[in-house]
């Protein structure tokens, strides 16, 4: 019995992304497609998302012209592939405050947003440092934080302090501090609602970009490999990777890297008329497939 359906929804992509950004140290290993996705979790009257993508209105042109992002589609178009509208979304889990995960909060007028308090407070701290430390502010948009102020005033922003089990029934938020960012978190969906659940899924945000981060580049002798960028500790990142893998009983395919172009090889999926991919991880009982 599965409580939730989970889809990974592509909303944009970089056609040629350097592999060294995906796997730390993988220099001169060429380029591959990097999908930009968010996750839809649906079931038990809940329509939740993990992250919301970037703000195309403010800098979509920059992204397209200078940084290789292509084919951005609005959440309305993307969610429609699963029969959902942005207004239907009632909960959003923001894994971290980078522009491509927190940039589009405006699009979801009825959602409550969850973010680690540490992600915000450490960002404020980083900005108080001398200009020489400005690298610590990379990929964050003050505009996203301004929008978060509005959310807070509306009572729609929940600052989470560490782990929170059952933030929604069977859905846990897990802190991953000082990894990809200061206050990152990941989302665990225990699809049978049990504490020790064989049908668990981990939605990893940017803690992993690819299954290679989970098993290395030699499957005969697996190892964890960090992603190409972290403002925190790569050691912490690997320890968190191990934690995520253990949460799913070692079944690597259940730790979901939303930037992984190879999800389609493991899960049923389809390309939409817009050339973006809908990947179906699991269906709740009675839910209609969106890919078959």
């Amino acid at each position, binding site marked *: 019995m599965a409580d939730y359906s989970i889809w990974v929804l592509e909303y944009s992509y970089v056609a040629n*992304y*350097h592999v060294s950004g995906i796997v730390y140290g993988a220099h001169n290993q060429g380029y591959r497609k*990097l999908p930009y996705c968010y996750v839809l979790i649906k079931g038990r009257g809940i329509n939740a998302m993990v992250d919301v993508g970037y703000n195309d209105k403010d800098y979509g042109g920059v992204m397209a012209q200078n*940084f290789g992002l292509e084919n951005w589609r609005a959440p309305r178009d993307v969610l429609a592939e699963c029969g959902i509208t942005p207004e239907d979304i009632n909960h959003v889990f923001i894994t971290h405050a980078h522009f491509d995960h927190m940039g589009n909060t405006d699009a979801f007028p009825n959602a409550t947003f969850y973010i680690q308090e540490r992600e915000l407070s450490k960002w*404020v701290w980083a*900005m108080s440092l001398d200009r020489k430390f400005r690298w610590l502010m990379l990929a964050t948009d003050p505009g996203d934080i301004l929008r978060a102020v509005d959310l807070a005033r509306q009572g729609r922003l929940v600052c989470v302090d560490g782990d929170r089990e059952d933030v929604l029934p069977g859905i846990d938020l897990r802190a991953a501090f000082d990894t990809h960012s200061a206050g990152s978190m990941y989302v665990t969906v225990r699809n049978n609602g049990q504490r020790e659940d064989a049908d668990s899924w981990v939605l990893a945000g940017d803690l992993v970009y690819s299954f290679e981060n989970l098993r290395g580049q030699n499957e005969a002798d697996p190892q964890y490999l960090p992603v190409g960028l972290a403002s925190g500790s790569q050691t912490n990142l690997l320890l968190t990777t191990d934690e995520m893998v253990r949460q799913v009983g070692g079944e690597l395919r259940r730790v979901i890297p939303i930037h992984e172009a190879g999800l389609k090889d493991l899960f049923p999926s389809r390309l939409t008329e817009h050339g973006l991919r809908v990947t179906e991880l699991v269906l709740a009982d009675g839910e209609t497939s969106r890919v078959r």
Partner: protein
Amino acid sequence: MVSKGGAFGGSGRGPALQPIVCETVPAPGLPDILGASLDERTLAYVLAARVPFDLLRQCAGQLAGLLVLSASGARAGPDHSLLERARSVHQEADDALRRTAPPEPARHHHRHLLSASEQLRAALLAAARHRREGDDATIDAVLVPLRQGYRELQWSSAALPGFEIVAFEQGCCVSHPPIAPTGGRVAFRGSAQAGRAVGVPETGRKNSNG
């Protein structure tokens, strides 16, 4: 000029500025400083103005961050030292801007930056009051000029190349264009101008950070 009240004037730092209202951003795409054909004086202005622009963006971000922590009831509420740091950053930016004499092609850009600075000054004053009084009503007094200041920064970002609101070039998930080796000289790719290099060491070897 007579100040319009609210956002401008009363600073005692020269004539108050008329608000500049431009078309809503975004521009179709930021001009690429590496490929833009800027005259020498405008290029010099861009190089000089990037630091105060970054400082103003930093100040705006600090204020927004302090506000969101306060408004969300987070344990890490507004801290006096952080607000002081935002004020100090703003002062540094403002001083630099007022020392900068823009050439004609950059005057529109410079006015946006000056307007942004004035708005952020108003936001900082309101933030100090909010910190003392601690009630939600004073958050609006910070938010209004802060939003306008941020908007001015966005408009400046669209007015000339080289001013990015978000440091995408350091971003984790974007495709970075390659930078050509320069054989020992520091230079912008594709530009006849010598200037501040991006990631090219003096040996001329390409930076090896992927």
